[in-house]
């Protein structure tokens, strides 16, 4: 089975990529591991989706259905309940190993791939929380799936570590289900979630948010019995004497999402230590020719709308690559995150591609009420833009015009806080 394009993952990213890569002349396959398309949107039954993309407020499933409806009449193959196991590339053809109960483990080939496989949740082990190791400690997204998709409540008294958006959403969701939600702790001095979620999920329900706090101990032999909360200093060390005990049967973790690109056992490509995803150019092409990445499999987004927007571009770029027999070029300009910037995407600009401007997505590493984003190429400042109320939790975007890029030196972006 040979395809022009195989899209891996049918969530918000895969759907948008499919819609925009589509051309009647192309043979496209989308592979989805669950029964239906929609990805994590299916379990996000809260509203707030679609404000940017559809100009109206939708729930996650509603947003998913809009996407699904936009691709369901396309002449493409969609394979659900099928999981990709491994990918290799030989003589410019990708061989994608996948499995399902209909065909068993088998290989399908393609000229190009869009990787839109989403992300997974950081676990207790990865952040090395001290204390006992009972059941009842789980990523917030897992609890969300159990509750919204399957109808099971994971506990009756809950504490949440990490103020990422899933944690905040789950604080409210569990409260509505009659659970005692005793608080949300965030190790940073500011919240890691969207402001609207802090207000709508915590303030409106009188759920306390403990900033500069972390879990310093966990108790319970079989099932969680309690946690100890401690304040941290500027170096994130717990401060003795600030301990507060909470009796809870559940601790939900909202401590980060990591692009899920672990199905690549046999094919390696350049990855970024900052995003844990692929390094891409402005066409979302990775270091491997014909391999594109978008959505949360590339870097973690705040909003599904931004995933859609990015994946539309990736889909279009893959289509252009296929229609014009595109090749991977070699004249790249590096884009670097400098002072107070965590990461910037894309990480490279392919100067052989025709483009008028490129949208840079980036996150700051420090909060600033007022400041300026400055873009440099070599010693030369080529652009700057004023910024208000900038926080690490919210992705920033700047459009950089090609005409401002004069040389082949690396371009860097920094954030200057105005005191």
């Amino acid at each position, binding site marked *: 089975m040979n395809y022009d394009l195989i899209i891996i993952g049918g969530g918000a990213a895969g759907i948008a990529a499919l819609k925009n890569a589509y051309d009647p002349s192309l043979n496209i396959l989308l592979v989805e591991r669950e029964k239906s398309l929609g990805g994590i949107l299916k379990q996000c039954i809260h509203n707030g989706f679609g404000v940017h993309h559809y100009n109206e407020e939708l729930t996650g499933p509603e947003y998913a259905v809009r996407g699904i409806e936009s691709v369901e009449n396309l002449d493409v193959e969609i394979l659900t309940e099928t999981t990709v196991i491994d990918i290799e590339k030989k003589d410019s053809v990708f061989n994608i190993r996948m499995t399902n109960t209909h065909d068993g483990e088998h290989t399908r080939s393609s000229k190009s791939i869009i990787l839109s496989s989403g992300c997974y949740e950081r676990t207790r082990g990865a952040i090395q929380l001290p204390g006992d190791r009972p*059941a009842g400690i789980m990523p917030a997204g897992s609890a969300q799936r*159990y509750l919204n998709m399957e109808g*099971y409540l994971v506990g009756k008294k809950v504490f949440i570590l990490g103020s990422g958006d899933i944690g905040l959403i789950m604080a409210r969701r569990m409260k509505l289900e009659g659970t005692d939600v005793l608080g949300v702790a965030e190790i940073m001095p500011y919240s890691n979630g969207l402001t609207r979620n802090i207000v709508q999920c915590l303030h409106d329900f009188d759920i306390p948010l403990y900033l500069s706090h972390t879990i310093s101990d966990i108790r319970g032999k079989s099932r969680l019995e309690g946690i100890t909360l401690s304040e941290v200093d500027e170096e994130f060390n717990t401060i003795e004497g600030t301990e507060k005990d909470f009796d809870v049967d559940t601790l939900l973790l909202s401590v980060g999402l990591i692009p899920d690109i672990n199905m690549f056992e046999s094919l390696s490509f350049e990855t970024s230590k900052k995003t844990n995803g692929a390094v891409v150019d402005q066409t979302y092409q990775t270091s491997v020719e014909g391999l594109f990445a978008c959505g949360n499999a590339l870097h973690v987004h705040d909003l599904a709308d931004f995933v859609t927007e990015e994946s539309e571009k990736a889909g279009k770029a893959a289509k252009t690559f296929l229609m014009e027999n595109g090749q991977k070029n070699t004249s790249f300009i590096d884009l670097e995150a400098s002072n107070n910037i965590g990461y910037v995407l894309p990480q490279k600009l392919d100067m052989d591609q025709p483009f008028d401007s490129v949208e840079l997505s980036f996150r700051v590493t420090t909060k600033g009420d007022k400041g300026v984003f400055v873009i440099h190429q070599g010693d030369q400042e080529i652009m700057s833009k004023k910024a208000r109320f900038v926080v690490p939790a919210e992705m920033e975007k700047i459009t950089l015009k090609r005409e401002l890029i004069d040389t082949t030196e690396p371009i860097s972006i920094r954030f200057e806080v105005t005191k």
Partner: protein
Amino acid sequence: MYDYIIIGAGVVGTAIARELMKYDVSALMIEKENDVCNHASLANSAIVHSGHDPKPGTLKAKLNVEGNRLYEELEDTLDIPLLKNGAFVVAQSEAEEKRLKSLYERALENGVKDCSILDREEALKREPNLNSKVTMVLDLPTTKVTYPWEVTLANAENAIENGLEFKKSTEVTQIEKTDDVFTVTTSEGTHYKTRSIINAAGAFTGVIAAMIEEHPKFEITPRRGEYFVIDRHAKGFINHTLYPVPSEKGKGILIVPQVHGETLIGPSSEFQDDPENIDNTKDGLSKVRKGATKLTDKIPFNKVIRTFTGVRASSTHKDFFIQESEEVKNLIHVAGIDSPGLSAAPAIAKYVVNTLIKANTDLRDNPSFNPRRKGIKLFNQMTDEEKKEAFRYDPRHGNLICKCEKVTEADIVHAINRNVPGDTVKGIKKRSRAGAGICQGGYCEHNVIHLIAREKNKPVTKVEYYDEGSYILKSETKVKQ
């Protein structure tokens, strides 16, 4: 009436049980936990040591060297994995070189094969990421790594296949002896009669001894060890098992490549009173990090997927305490089994049966004993041809449940239905590796819960993570159609 009751289903208890089933005896193994391999055998370094470290003349030295050799046979007979990666003991100063040389002498005296001293250059050539301060290395090519969960399961499954009876979730609460017969009472109120008892209760051997002896000759002093687990995708930064030069306190903090590709970093070593306290501490983990970094600064601590703590059943008796009770005839203690307990386990079993039991009992061979056991053939470990055949036979092999470790629904169903069933989430992980990968069950746990519930015909809210009371789902929020 049984001939033997074995208390404890860790790697040692199960190895003894299997050894006993080679003879025409009736035996019952009792375990207080809901699965075999739930304490010291579960959480350790997984090393089959060469036998270089124990003091010559001790049981530890003798049984370690012999156990190491026996693992080579058991690899095939019991279908257990062995990583034959060898080990380096790393010296970084003149003082350490001196101790390394005497360790080499000790290894020779213990009968360790093929060991040698390497100079700095040779050591760095063979293990380029070693700390560049290395001055000399003791090369121990017979050191291996195994999978303690699989070893324990293999022993238990094979022993049951050959007639052993097994009661799990059953705690021994009382032992009495009248005439020549023991009555063993358990938490469920049952009284079992037996002629002999083998006390292999690990950290609880002292508790068992105290049930029937007035003056037990050993005392268990539990010693904790904390570990990091590094993701298998980061494998290869170190290939040998690395030890520092040992000190009074033990073998020190190690770097141990695992059979499935993860790397263990640890253990720390602290005495504690509670044999079941397996919490992780900031202090313990930071000691491990510091200690291991002395061996190489290339440890990818950003790739840690899990931390854990194991508790060694150390005793006041420095050597293994393996002997018949002086007070109570036909009660054999197998106690104080700390390192190198896993390495020695097969040799301990032979020592208990061939030396201690046969000294005063005639054992007749069990003519139908089958020494061979086949493990679950996991889909991911099959060749392409085998996969095709397996899928034709069972299409559930097409349903991938754990995408990190590539475990199929059929693999998990097999794990649930073995003769020692995996009927907890952790039990499934021990048998199939579902949940052992980078997302730590984030993706597959809900599916695993549903499969256990389906196969065991129980509500998902009754499926447990590990031990009794470790439920994952509290209640239903919808009335099921």
